């Protein structure tokens, strides 16, 4: 169980906002963070990863205290055993596909690398450098690298945002497959209502740093989904006019 109770002043393009989150993420859950730009989704992921220090509060995973402002505990990212997948994938250009995945590994087991290469259909690309890969291939390598470290919590920052519709759909299935197989607690940032409904077991909707809704994505987005299905080309219009905002 991941318990989050934090407050943090963020500087966004619209000025200063206060991020206030108090929630619990069940084990094996795939929680989507949904909201407009500047709502605090990425900031929350970075705070959980230990890349940003929250101003106040605490973060506890199972019995491990990751952050406690009162007791002045703040574990470094290296000690939190998280897997963070960045928007730009952050694959190291000097390493091959296999090298990147091996870098994520904590032991020296070749078996794990082989399994991950097979799982993500990367066997034929193992010697390629990131610069030679397509967006979808990079995404698979990044996900494989993150999983090589066997994280307790998986943090995915808009992992599919840079991909076209077809590739997105394909990789949504990939993420779902991995989550069903490994059952790692996962928090994922997304802007796409369909993606949230398709992948998430629950969703948190953030607005200006505050949680305005939490629950089952189907229940929350029911009305919006109906509108989308009736008129799919009005997606951008609906995301603005959606009743949840």
């Amino acid at each position, binding site marked *: 169980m991941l318990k989050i109770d934090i407050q943090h002043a963020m500087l966004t393009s619209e000025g200063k906002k206060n991020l206030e989150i108090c929630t619990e993420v069940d084990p094996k859950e795939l929680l989507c963070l949904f909201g407009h730009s500047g709502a605090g989704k990425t900031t929350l992921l970075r705070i959980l*990863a*230990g*890349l940003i220090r929250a101003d106040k509060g605490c973060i506890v995973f199972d019995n491990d205290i990751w952050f406690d402002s009162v007791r002045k505990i703040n574990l*470094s*990212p*290296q000690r*939190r*055993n*998280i*897997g*963070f997948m*960045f*928007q*730009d994938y*952050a694959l*190291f*250009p*000097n390493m091959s596909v296999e090298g990147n995945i091996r*870098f*994520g590994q*904590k032991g020296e087991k070749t078996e794990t690398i082989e399994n991950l290469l097979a799982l993500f259909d990367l066997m034929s690309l193992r010697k390629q450098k990131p*610069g030679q890969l397509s967006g979808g291939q990079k995404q698979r390598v990044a996900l494989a*690298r*993150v999983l090589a*470290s066997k994280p307790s919590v998986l943090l995915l920052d808009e992992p599919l945002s840079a991909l076209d519709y077809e590739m997105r759909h394909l990789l949504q299935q990939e993420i779902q497959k991995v989550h069903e197989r490994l059952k790692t607690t996962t928090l994922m940032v997304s802007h796409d209502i369909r993606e949230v409904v398709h992948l998430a077991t629950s969703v948190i909707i953030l607005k200006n740093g505050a949680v305005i809704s939490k629950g089952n994505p189907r229940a929350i987005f029911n009305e919006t989904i109906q509108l989308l299905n009736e008129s799919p080309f009005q997606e951008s219009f609906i995301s603005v006019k959606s009743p949840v905002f």
Partner: protein
Amino acid sequence: MEQDFWETVLLTGKLAGWTTVILFMIGFPVAYLLAYKQLFFKHLVEALISMPLVLPPTVLGFYMLIAYSPQNAFGRFLEQYFDLRLAFSFEGVLIASVIFSLPFMIQPLQNGLKSIPCSFREASYTLGKSEFVTFFRVLVPNMVPSIITAIAMTFAHCIGEFGVVIMVGGNMPGETRVASIAIYDEVQSLDYATANQYSFVLFIISLLILTLIYSINGKKTII
């Protein structure tokens, strides 16, 4: 004459080589701190490091000479405790050369570190890797052109250094007489042939170094 020529050329290479090695050791940690850490006096440190770019070499040479003098605290300390006189010695010139070449090593390294997307470092940390491992396995291999530029620029700059060397070291054959000083000296004594020999060596070395920098930077722009 021939022996003097090669002695001077070798001394020039020795000064440039040692300056580059010492600066590489000092420069990398300093560049890392300036690129990634929040330091209180960061801008002042950056300004001090960049001073040799705008300051006449004779100014730095003058202050170094004053500092080395046994009549001042630093010089007196060196003489009393280490029996060392730095003025008009190779070691004195080397220290001055290190200080004067600081920006040529640190700035390319700092720019190289800054040009690496910060998500690379963060990805490495979240994969459980320490700053040390991240530095050697992620940062250094992805900034090779900047490292080569820093080394080549420092070496090339030292090869041609004149003002600081003449102020701190004078013109002592085999000790402080480097090629650029020899050129000046030979021209003063109207020996244009020897001056031409030194000039040609400096010209070729500088050209080779700059060609190396441009060819490496031209090739490696894809990250």
